[in-house]
């Protein structure tokens, strides 16, 4: 019998127009933070989708996904929707659990609203959390 394949963590360093992405395969703690207005989001997020698809093949995971974005463009907004769809499917098929922590600056009503809209559209559990600092 083959042993369980241990997945590598995923890390992508931030730049001014791309977020920091940090996925811990062992703890199930995934996070994405910063700004995202890359011109070619399909290309930029491709490795993210590859990693996630692989990660979600294994049942029994308890995923906590932190979104701590200060700005993202509409192209990125589509990629986020696709990420949520993957996660929602994982949860709905009973393979595991997913919690989204959606952080926003207290004054940023637009970012809060974006989180509310994603929550309604995906059926995932969103914690909308104002940043204290």
């Amino acid at each position, binding site marked *: 019998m083959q042993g369980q394949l241990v997945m590598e963590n995923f890390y992508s360093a931030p730049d*001014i*127009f791309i977020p920091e992405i940090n996925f811990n395969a062992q703890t199930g703690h995934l996070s994405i933070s910063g*700004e995202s*207005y*890359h*011109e*070619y*989001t*399909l290309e930029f997020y491709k490795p993210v989708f590859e990693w996630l698809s692989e990660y979600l093949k294994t049942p029994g995971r308890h995923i906590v996904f932190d979104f701590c974005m*200060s*700005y993202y*463009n*509409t*192209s*990125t*907004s*589509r990629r986020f*929707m696709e990420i949520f769809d993957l996660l929602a499917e994982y949860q709905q098929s009973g393979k595991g659990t997913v919690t989204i922590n959606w952080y926003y*600056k207290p*004054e*940023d*009503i*637009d970012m809060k*609203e974006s989180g509310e*809209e994603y929550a*309604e*559209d995906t059926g995932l559990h969103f914690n909308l959390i104002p940043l204290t600092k």
Partner: protein
Amino acid sequence: MSATEQSFSIYEFYRRLKVHHLSLVAQGIMSQDLLSLIALSIKRRPDNEVIARRLFALVVELAQNILHYSAVKEFSAKDQREVGVGIVAIGESDTHYLVASGNVAQPENAAYVARHCDYINQLDPDELREYYRQQRRLPVKEGSVGGSIGLIEIVRKSGQPLSYEIIPIEDDKVFLIFVAKVNKSLNPHVD
């Protein structure tokens, strides 16, 4: 075609920018590096962070429209591909910030965008919200590399209609112009 042959006066240019209260004009490749610089200069200006971010969103969506859809393209060594060129200007009045963009387009593409723009301009905020979410769910159209929901986002962030103009130019092309505005104070379009 050099600037000196056209007797270009940077003073005249400066004066015209002042007359129209334009603080920033960029022409050429709308790269994300350029957008990053614009972001830094915008964040320094409006007192309100939310307004600044809305203004920046207008710039990004208009600039990336140009990058993906302009009929005039240049080779970007950094991107290793042809990218669209155009012009983006940021200005202000007493009550609003304004972003204007322009690029050469095929007439049929400009006409398509104009119809899309007419449609979203007559939606109320709730309808816009629904339309945005509905469009985000749809697969992207053939040949589209951007989000395809940029114009909806602009009208939502702006809180008012997006005006456009289509000017016929040489070679059966048109110059497609957008002007988006955002209120300087947090307006009641978001409850």
